[in-house]
């Protein structure tokens, strides 16, 4: 049973741009998939659609065997909250809030009792190795630390899947490696499904499988044979 499955996904914007022209693939639980392509290839559009942030023009998208097209706005929000985590290139943190408050943000929209929030947030922060920065305001942090906070935020509701949109794009190579290391560990040790968007082959090679996308269609779908391990970078 696939976690998500898209078939013949088409997205045409109102200005006539055809961002997706029939993308088809599926992702199973526990996979670590890189979607790679040059800018304008449609990879971000694809991520937005499978991340329930946008809707396709046509084609079918099944998440956990459910037809997403039938969902109401509240249900989509609930799915994003409970089953999905997002990591963006620009971090998208609230600068005037502390690390802990940023990590808690998804909990505000969950239905978990407030008494559990503090522990969950601390646990998530610990899993990205930022426990010592817990009460810092996020604008005081380095880029790498900011992205770790974003990852902790994505993890807080123990999602089925994490979507990472160019997560290393704004980081120096060392911080980028640290972030990739976290993703690999999350995938290996905790079994999180991860979909990574990137335009760099080097970054994509940290995944287990790579989908190449060009002009809105999936060009190739290959397992990575010579996988890079971010942890070895630090040795």
């Amino acid at each position, binding site marked *: 049973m696939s976690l998500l499955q898209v078939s013949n996904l088409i997205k045409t914007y109102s200005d006539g741009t055809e961002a997706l022209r029939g993308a088809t693939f599926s992702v199973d639980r526990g996979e670590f998939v890189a979607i790679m392509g040059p800018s304008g290839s449609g990879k971000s559009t694809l991520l*937005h659609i499978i991340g329930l*942030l946008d809707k396709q023009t046509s084609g079918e998208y099944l998440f956990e065997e459910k037809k997403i097209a039938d969902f109401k706005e509240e249900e989509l929000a*609930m799915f994003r*909250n409970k089953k999905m985590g997002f990591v963006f290139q620009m971090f*998208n943190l609230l600068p005037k809030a502390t690390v802990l408050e940023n990590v808690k943000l*998804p909990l*505000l*929209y969950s239905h978990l009792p*407030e008494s559990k929030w503090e522990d969950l947030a601390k646990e998530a922060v610990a899993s990205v190795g930022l426990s010592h920065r817990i009460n810092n305001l996020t604008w005081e942090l380095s880029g790498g630390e900011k992205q770790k906070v974003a990852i902790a*935020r994505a993890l807080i509701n123990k999602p089925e899947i994490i979507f990472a949109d160019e997560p290393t794009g704004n980081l120096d190579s060392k911080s980028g490696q640290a972030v990739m290391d976290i993703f690999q560990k999350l995938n290996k040790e905790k079994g999180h499904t991860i979909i990574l968007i990137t335009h760099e082959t080097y970054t994509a090679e940290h995944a287990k499988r790579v989908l190449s996308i060009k002009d809105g269609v999936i060009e190739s779908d290959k397992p990575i044979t010579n996988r890079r391990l971010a942890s070895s970078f630090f040795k």
Partner: protein
Amino acid sequence: MVLKYTFKTATRALITHKVRSFLTILGIVIGIAAIILVSSVGESANNVIVGELGGLGAETVVIRPGKEPKGPTDIAETLFSDSLKERELEALKKKGNVPDIADISPEILVPGSVSYAGETYKPVILGFSADFMTDTLGLVVSEGASFGEAEIRARSKVAVIGRKVAVELFGNNNPIGEQIQIKNNKFRVVGLFEKRGQVVFFDVDELVLVPYSTAQTYLSGNDYYTQIIARAVSPEKVDGVVYDIKRTLRDLHKIDDPEKDDFYVQTQQGLVEQVESIIGVFTLFLSLVVAVSLVVGGVGIMNIMLVSVTERTKEIGLRKAVGATSKDIMLQFLTEAVILTFAGGLIGVIIGVSLSFMVSVLAKLIAGFALSFVFPIVPALVGIFVSVLVGVVFGIYPAREASKKSPIEALRYE
């Protein structure tokens, strides 16, 4: 979303822009402060005037010359009307005409000053019946004696004076028996009123009371009255007395059409209603001004909230991405607008109450006017409610705009 966090988020957003938030709510602050001030001072003034009129007694009926004033020019007209003279007084005194009158006296207001041994003072000089003063208005002659019917008939040059007049002219000396000068006539001071302050239309302490007959003969130089004051035997008889007075005077003046009356009759009840209606109109007008200022304030709130929504587009996108529904976003921005206006209302109430208190203190200090300060609890609650309402009304559009943003466009926004 847990309400506590909605509040926390909203408060943080507002505190981040302290100056902007403050300037935004200034319109609301001023509007609400004005509501409180207007209603509180209006209420106090109303209480004072109605209280004063209460001193007139429910049985009292005032007959004035001229047409009933409907505007400022009509009042000027009454001052020069001469329709009430001795003939009218005698007619009204007849039991056959107005059976339920207990007492009646004409009143003559004389402009001018009094002097004694080089000291001059400008009091309220009133030609009246002293008995009526003491019986109906409850004034007390504490030293010396009053004058009675005998002095009125004899047109005696005697006067009963108020405390302030006595102090101004005589200092600490006893004024009883001394001669004071009013318009080239010597009047002997026979009595001194007890210190009392404001009663109905005049300050007792500034009063110089002389027999009305004497006032006509020596002071006013004409034979008409400023007004005639009558007292009905009981409050229940007032309406009947008013009816009888009107009928008697119309007969006497041969008037068929009430529109052409050359006199008018006022009762305490009528005066209270008149005062209340004047204050009511005044309050209504000011309320309209306040309403306009609140609308302007509300538009200011809306403007700033729209700016805030645009500024925080990215934040909205993020919140939606991590699971916020449109409703959550809407509630968040609406809460922000309401917190703003609520704070504005609260500050406005504090300022308004402080100003009302200051007005009451100043009124006492400067004008000697006992404007009692009552904490305006109802206007304060109304003020808070109205400010919250302004927040909801003017916050809803920006909040909707925020909630309608698609997460993708919001996240892309730079």
